[in-house]
């Protein structure tokens, strides 16, 4: 599955990239990210006066020579960057060619790979949570559900490039489906997370209840948030016309619409307005935002667009 998600060539290209953390890591785990903590890295940070009990190996003898006073040299502590990838796996993500979910998890895999390469701890959280009932309704056996649960749990707290292959494979095995509540899912995830870090949300952000509460919850938890809105091409430019009865894939709600080619422009304007509002919401909160359609070339998104929006460097 890893082959299908990310090609070897792309992986080589991704090796050159790294995640850009917006701020210094607050994580407690050791890693390769600069943090505000003082520790044992090679990066000098500051001096402080010697007090009894300090390690005499860290005395700055040159300074003692000049000032005749004892100072201890402080070094920066390098910590890990917890990267939380929130991947929308609701039913609405199963649309598009390729499906939005497929595209989103390839993006997630790529970003996760970059993070793993940077020795960051990566957690992929799929929402909505797995619902055994819904799986049963789809006629899948309990083993499938259990396997899905196993794949999902295997995506939590992955660290180190060695695990990248398994990480990508597991990401390729998860499936989308079920009714998602974007706000509630993000709020719960924010609460469950022990350490805030970088949060990257992959979703279509088309939840009837909106997106503000969920993103605000992440911000409140201290995450540095990036939002990638994944849309299907037909959502931007509908191809079905006439007297339509539209059925919401998640809520099952029906909407009767009489739509014609002459109205495509008006619809497109509605989508643009929606995205613009979303973009302004994110900008006001310091959230990185980027919209992508599922039929875009993955390489161009990763190597160009995400670098431009300061997620990758």
């Amino acid at each position, binding site marked *: 599955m890893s082959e299908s998600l990310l090609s070897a060539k792309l992986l080589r290209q991704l090796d050159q990239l790294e995640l850009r953390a917006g701020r210094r890591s607050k994580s407690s785990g050791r890693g390769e990210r600069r943090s505000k903590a003082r520790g044992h890295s090679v990066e000098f940070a500051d001096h402080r006066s010697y007090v009894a009990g300090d390690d005499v190996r860290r005395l700055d003898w040159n300074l003692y020579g000049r000032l005749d006073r004892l100072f201890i040299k402080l070094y920066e502590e390098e910590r890990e960057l917890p990267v939380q990838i929130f991947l929308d796996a609701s039913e609405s993500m199963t649309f*598009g060619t390729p499906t939005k979910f497929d595209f989103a998890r390839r993006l997630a895999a790529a970003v996760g790979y970059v993070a793993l390469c940077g020795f960051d701890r990566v957690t992929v959280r799929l929402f909505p949570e797995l619902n055994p009932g819904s799986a049963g309704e789809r006629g899948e056996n309990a083993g499938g559900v259990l396997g899905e649960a196993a794949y999902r749990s295997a995506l939590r707290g992955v660290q180190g490039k060695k695990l990248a292959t398994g990480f990508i494979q597991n990401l390729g095995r998860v499936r989308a489906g079920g009714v998602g509540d974007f706000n509630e899912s993000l709020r719960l995830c924010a609460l469950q997370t022990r350490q805030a870090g970088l949060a990257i949300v992959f979703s279509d952000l088309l*939840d*009837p209840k909106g997106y503000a509460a969920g993103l605000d919850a992440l911000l409140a938890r201290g995450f540095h948030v990036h939002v990638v809105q994944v849309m299907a091409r037909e959502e931007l430019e509908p191809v079905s016309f006439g007297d339509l009865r539209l059925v919401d894939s998640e809520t099952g709600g029906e909407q*009767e619409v*009489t739509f014609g080619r002459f109205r495509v422009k008006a619809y497109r304007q509605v989508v643009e307005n929606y995205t613009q509002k979303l973009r302004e919401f994110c900008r006001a909160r310091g959230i990185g935002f980027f919209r992508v359609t599922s039929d875009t070339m993955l390489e161009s998104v990763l190597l160009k667009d995400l670098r431009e929006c300061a997620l990758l460097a």
Partner: protein
Amino acid sequence: MNFLTPLAAWFAATIPVVVLFYLLKRRRVVLKVPSTVLWQKYLAETQASAPFQKLRKNWLLFLQILLLALAVFGLTRPFFAGQQTPSSLRVLILDASASMQSSDVAPSRFEAARSEALRWVDGLKPGQSMVVLQAGPRTEVRQSATSDRQALRRALQAAAVTDGPARAGEALKMAESLIRDVSDAEIHLFSDGAISGLETFENHNLPLVFHRVGERLNNVAITSLDVRTNPENPNQRAVFASVANLTAAPVATTVELGFAGDTLDVRPVTIPAGETESLVFLVSQQADGEFTVRHTTADDLSVDNQSSVMSLLPRPVKVLLVSRGNRFLEKAIRSVGAVDLSTVGEAPLDTAAWDVVVLDDVAPTVWPRGNVLAVRVAEPDWFEATGAVRAPPVVDWKSTHPLLRFVNLDNVQVAEASGVKTPRWGTVLVESPQTPLVVAGEVGRQRVVWIGFDLLASNWPLRVSFPMFVANAIEWLNPATTSAERRNVRAGEPIRLDVPEGTTAVDVRPPGEGWRSIPVNQGSTELVFGGTDRQGSYGVRWGTNETAVVVRALDVQESNSTPRKEIQMGRYGGTVATTMRSANLEIWRWFAGVALAVLLFEWWFYHRRTA
């Protein structure tokens, strides 16, 4: 409220079609979409969130404005002044009555009508046909239905104006029968509107177009002329004439009376506008002849400026009274004057020597062939007897009949009368509830006055009315009276004259023409000549006999030839033909049709947009 086209109500059948459209369910395609969030926003934004919005270019808007404009334009009922859609058959009726000779439009109304009719003939298109009728005293079919313009032109050129009245009702009835099976036919009447015979003609949506000719009325007319014996001096003749001034101003004119070419009297008269002046000329007459009255005022219609009357010298009437003795009746007959009375007890076999035979309750062996006054006797096939009626009261009498002129039958009582049924040949003059009491009529060519009760068994001989009735009866039965009446006929009416048995042909000379031989039907003793379109003296001769008949144009309706804007038809006046030469071509139907087409197009366009 009335409807011009009630048949259009059938269009109501389209209403169910509209309902059907609404019954048709819009079949919506069910489409599963990731989320309806964007669609809800789309609907919310495209629906009216504010009362007004910027006017945008929308073809549906243009279509609806067009639809509305068409509907409004249609409601204004626009029309073009033009001729109606050409009909496949037109019946042209040319009024050839005397009033059409008026010269208020040069050269005459008739010529103006003819030229207009010719214009219609010129406008004849292929596939259309016309009929030409001439409406004079008689209606003549000048040309039956044809598309041949030359034939139609010839027929119109051959039409000639008459001095008689126009029997338009007859012409319209004929035209109606001609167009009965043609749905889009038209009748075009070219006339001045001074026509008669329409009182009994009910217009049942006749497609009649009335082309009026004539502009004004400027006419002084002699409207009546009659000759009687001067009641005050039996040796003199009294000529009664009426001159009507039908102009809008008083007219001073001179009225001349002539007899056989000599002028007998000249009288100046001044007639106020709209009034009629009656003149009486008292003259002596030596021989049978023609009195002519004319006035000297020049007017538009010359045909009624003069009139003639044939006057026959009064001769004593020979009366044979067959009676067992009835002094009342005898005295009454003798009091008539100019009567040569013979009284006998039994009727002779041959009564041809007498003008009038009076049978007073005496049945003759051979019924007389002359005129008869019969009291209680009748030829067997005259009546169907119903038995005797005792004391029949007199309930009604026909006072307008010449026989009952000045006769009042109040207080007349009858003891017994013969009960009969009213015969077809006669008119009941006096009637009781059970039976007619006095009947007058013509059986064949024999005039009969029948009294159904014994005069002596009634009190009528004691009443003043009795001698008056007898005088009236003798005058009515006098063959000379009939003869004088037959010598004066109205223009257009046939000349009927008795001729001796065995006559096969009679020569007739219309005024201004030569002698014409008119055949008499075999076995008939009557000449019938119908070509009396022009007024004047018609010479008639058979064998060595030669006489004259005067044809007169006297007709108040023709003289009063005001060009009428409307022709009144029928008794109730509800059906009036118009003077419209051209019909207003209403075109709202076209607009309604186009509006309907636009509506359908809009419907299609809307669905195409949303498809």
